[in-house]
């Protein structure tokens, strides 16, 4: 079946290391995306015409462009034109954050504008000041709406890291290919064993996050 290559040398460890690289890139991007996304999303609710125009163009670009094209533009294009010597990892983080920030800001904007005005009014009618209204009424509702959606975004970002091998980052998929290549003669079935293992690795990385999202969604159904 091709699983035996995993036991040769330190192949299994190398695969795990590759997964580590993928997780490392996606987690840094997630943290940046969530932080910038929250700020941008809040700015978008201010209804400032300049901010709105810029963010609309930005969101549209992210929606239209395949992530791979963005990766190539940043890694190959920007390095040449701007004379910046970006490493592949930094390029990947920039592209993923560029994408994640757009999606996150749209989620935040949606959650913020989705809170009915009556929630603010009835809190204030009870004598709560603006700060109390936000802390006890508005923010808890926003967080409840936002967390399941942003967890979904996180799993998508982890999956999409498989693209970064295209700009030379040795992540789990690339490591897998290297192992298959190296063992072509001794284990001709290695392709199945390795890719099945990678499938399981991605599953193990994403499934708990996905479960957490489902659990929170259920818990906060109201």
């Amino acid at each position, binding site marked *: 079946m091709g699983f035996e290559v995993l036991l040769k040398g330190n192949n299994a460890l190398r695969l795990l290391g590759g997964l580590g690289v993928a997780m490392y890139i996606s987690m840094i991007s997630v943290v940046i995306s969530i932080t910038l996304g929250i700020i941008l999303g809040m700015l978008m609710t201010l209804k400032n015409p300049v901010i709105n125009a810029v963010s609309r163009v930005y969101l549209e670009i992210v929606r239209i462009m395949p992530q791979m094209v963005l990766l190539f533009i940043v890694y190959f294009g920007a390095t040449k034109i701007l004379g910046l010597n970006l490493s592949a990892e930094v390029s990947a983080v920039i592209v993923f954050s560029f994408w994640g920030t757009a999606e996150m800001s749209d989620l935040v904007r949606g959650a913020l504008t989705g809170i*009915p005005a*009556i*929630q603010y*009014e*009835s*809190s*204030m*009618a*009870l*004598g*709560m*000041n603006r700060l*109390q209204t936000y802390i*006890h*009424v508005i923010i*808890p*509702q926003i967080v*409840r709406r936002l967390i399941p959606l942003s967890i979904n975004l996180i799993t998508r970002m982890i999956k999409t890291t498989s693209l970064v091998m295209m700009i030379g980052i040795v992540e789990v998929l690339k490591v897998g290919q290297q192992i298959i290549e190296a063992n072509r003669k001794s284990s001709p079935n290695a392709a199945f064993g390795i890719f099945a293992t990678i499938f399981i690795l991605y599953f193990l990385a994403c499934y708990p996050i996905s479960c957490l999202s489902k659990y929170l969604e259920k818990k*906060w*159904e*109201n």
Partner: protein
Amino acid sequence: MEEILRVENLSKKYEDVDVLDGISLSVKKGEVVVIVGPSGCGKSTFLRCLNGLEDIRDGSVFLGDEKINPNKKNLSKTREKIGMVFQSYDLFPHKTILQNVTLAPIKVKKRKKAEVEEEALKLLDRVGLISKKDNYPRQLSGGQKQRVAIVRALIMHPEVLLFDEVTAALDPEMVREVLDVVLSLAKEGRTMLIVTHEMSFARAVADRVIFLDGGKIVEEGKPTDFFDNPKTDRLKKFLKTFSYEE
């Protein structure tokens, strides 16, 4: 009886349209004033001006001796004294019924949790909803939610209660249970301003009825005079829309 709420020459505009046009009104302690009028006559806006949810252009609102609108400074303090129940179900969806009721007294009035909960349970019992204390708003019917909203306003010990069409969004069979609660509050001697479309309820609960049209008080009087012997043509016409007699 002493005066508790005084409105002097209150005016408000939305983009050049006079929504409220020089309204003056004095409400005595314990009085129940019902405001009726066609949709868009400004009756909801009027209530919202009384607790500062709307800015006003001219005139002023006094609670006791204190000017409360226009007054930016002590708005939250004022709102503690004026309870309001809205048309739409406005409970906090992420909190249980008990938490909905106890949130403001604990956070705003800084009262002790145990003491507030005890009072909340008494009030919930009074409106027949003590068994729902640990449920979430989504698990309640519209009428039950409105009764909770009334309790949530009551526990702040307001000096004046405002009801803004509290039954307008309810299924007909749930209107009664909510109005019964309001009626029992009236009998207790609470000061209330009620905007409603339920004319028979207005007759039963009101000490005084006000007909608002075009942002002005067109006619006011005791319920018997108001409904049985309306003086102005506009009120006669308005009341006619509620009956099917020729």
